[in-house]
């Protein structure tokens, strides 16, 4: 059984307009996607800005209401639960946010930041709480004395660790990491990525890893879903996506990755031109008359592509 199963999920945002602020249209941010996460794996969600990655993540943790579809966590459909019924499941799914600079409240001490989820879910004495926070702060590689400091006293990588410590306090099973290293520079980024892999083993975590950096996705993920305008264009193992991409949009995304070898500059440039040409020429093979992505079709046990 899949650990988390997303079935035909749709999330539409209403667009209001006119004098009465009536709903005049919808933004179909997520438009019928299905995928599943297996226990302990890292699943990458990739796509250009605005394709619906964050919306998907926020809907799974219950911050946004699904318009239609199911989100099944270990057999329970979360979308059918009332707020009260959902409550215990909130512990199981935690989120790490993109920007370590703005996602931590600057006026709170690290102790209070990290303890916040514990306070919501567990009744602990101040001593027990402090001990627990210190345990996790140490686990993420920070000095236990850090708990009395404020976020501005830490570097970007350290702040991201504080965010991770906070996400770990409730023993989650699933962590949704929304662009967790985009705001960090390479060497700090490496630190956080290494760390995420370490704790994955230690705490048996499943990751939904959202990013538009394909280099990082390749480094981190077991399987990958490529999103385009609220839908999936392709899904497969890391191997399949990088070595044998099928959808023209996937190819376009891959060819856009900057090549870190200056000697391959010309080849990279030509590859990009070629893919761009193919994109223009064969657009109608991959998108229907309304420019919409076709439903996914299995081309192997693990590899699916949106082709007619």
């Amino acid at each position, binding site marked *: 059984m899949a650990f988390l199963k997303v079935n035909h999920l749709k999330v539409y945002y209403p667009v209001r307009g006119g004098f009465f602020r009536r709903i005049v249209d919808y933004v179909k941010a997520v438009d019928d996607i299905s995928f599943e996460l297996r226990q302990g794996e890292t699943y990458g969600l990739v796509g*250009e800005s605005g394709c619906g990655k964050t919306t998907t993540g926020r809907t799974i943790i219950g911050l946004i209401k699904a318009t239609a579809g199911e989100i099944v966590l270990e057999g329970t459909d979360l979308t059918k639960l009332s707020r009260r019924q959902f409550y215990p499941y909130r512990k199981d799914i935690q989120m790490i946010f993109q920007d370590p600079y703005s996602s931590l409240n600057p006026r709170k001490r690290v102790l209070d930041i990290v303890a916040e989820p514990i306070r919501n879910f567990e009744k602990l004495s101040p001593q027990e709480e402090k001990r627990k926070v210190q345990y996790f702060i140490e686990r993420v590689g920070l000095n236990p004395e850090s708990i009395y400091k404020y976020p501005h006293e830490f*570097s970007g990588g350290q702040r991201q660790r504080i965010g991770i410590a906070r996400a770990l306090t409730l023993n989650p099973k699933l962590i949704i990491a929304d662009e967790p290293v985009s705001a960090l520079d390479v*060497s700090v980024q490496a630190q956080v990525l290494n760390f995420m892999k370490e704790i994955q083993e230690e705490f048996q975590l499943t990751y939904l890893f959202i990013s538009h950096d394909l*280099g990082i996705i*390749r480094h981190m993920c077991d399987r990958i879903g490529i999103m385009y305008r609220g839908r999936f264009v392709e899904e497969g193992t890391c191997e399949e996506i990088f070595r044998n991409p099928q959808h023209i949009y996937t190819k376009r995304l891959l060819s856009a990755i*900057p090549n870190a070898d200056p000697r391959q500059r010309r080849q990279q440039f030509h590859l990009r031109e070629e893919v761009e040409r193919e994109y223009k020429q064969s657009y109608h093979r991959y998108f229907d008359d309304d420019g919409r992505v076709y439903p996914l079709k299995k081309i192997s046990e693990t590899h699916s592509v949106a082709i007619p």
Partner: protein
Amino acid sequence: MTGKPILEIDHLRVSFRIQDQYYAAVDDVSLTVNEDEVVAIVGESGCGKSALALAVMGLHPPQKTKLEGSIIFKGTNLLSLSTSQLNKIRGKDIGMIFQDPLTALNPLMTIGRQIEESMDYHMKLSSMEKRQRTLELLKRVGIPNPEKTYHRYPHELSGGMRQRVVIAIAIACEPSLIIADEPTTALDVTIQAQIMGLLKELQQQMKTGIILITHDLGVVAEMADRVAVMYAGEIVELADVETLFHHPLHPYTRSLLHSIPSAQTRKEKLHVIQGIVPSLQKMPRTGCRFQSRISWIDESKHEPNPILREVEPGHWVRCTCYQHFYFPHDHIGDVGYGIS
């Protein structure tokens, strides 16, 4: 390959006042940019890249900042000019592109009006000519439907489109130098590839010199002719792009190249540079500034006063520690760079 120098930065020091003391964020940097050349500046957050760019553009507030050395642009020392003299050069001869296009654009003014305004200041054109030229510029930076976009406001455009508008403004007066500070950091890869292609094209067509600041080494590998690597306010290595990626010498450059995730690093640990970048006040001002981050290298291997030395023609490295540098043994071999 490259033409004559248009910008010569010489012994530049940029110091910020913090509680009545000045601390140098850019510390004795010399760098030349030739026409038709892309010089990339890379380095960890806080190493002084933006402080250097702002100095060239004359955008540091004089009350809080001290500038020493010289910045010769086409024969004139920019540091000796008055604000009004600088304004004549800025925006006309030197174009600027920043990370966040929204801060560079006026939210209350249409796109067309903003581009025209940038011409008002430096060119004498009739309103017909200006409009004509604006539409041409919009087309040139790859905006579909220029007539429509002309009447739009910044918030009505996507991030990539906004950055194109910023580039249109930057090139409106055909500058001979463009300073681009993280121009694609806020954009996703497909748009980034388009913007890089556009900058490259402009450089080739108009013989513009470009200073490209970024911490994305992939972007550097694709765009730059030469690369300056900065650490803690100093240039620690300077070389042409191939040399830098294939024969990096300075421990910092090698560590940086090692931290990039690539096809080979999958499921492995990435290299991490120990320790943190010191803050301005705590930065060591003597000795090798990178010493504390490669503590396994014996102290005696560093120079007491490291200078930037030309070790091969065109390849400059600071400090002798590079001759003795190795990655700690728990590390996965010294492959030098992260080719995908």
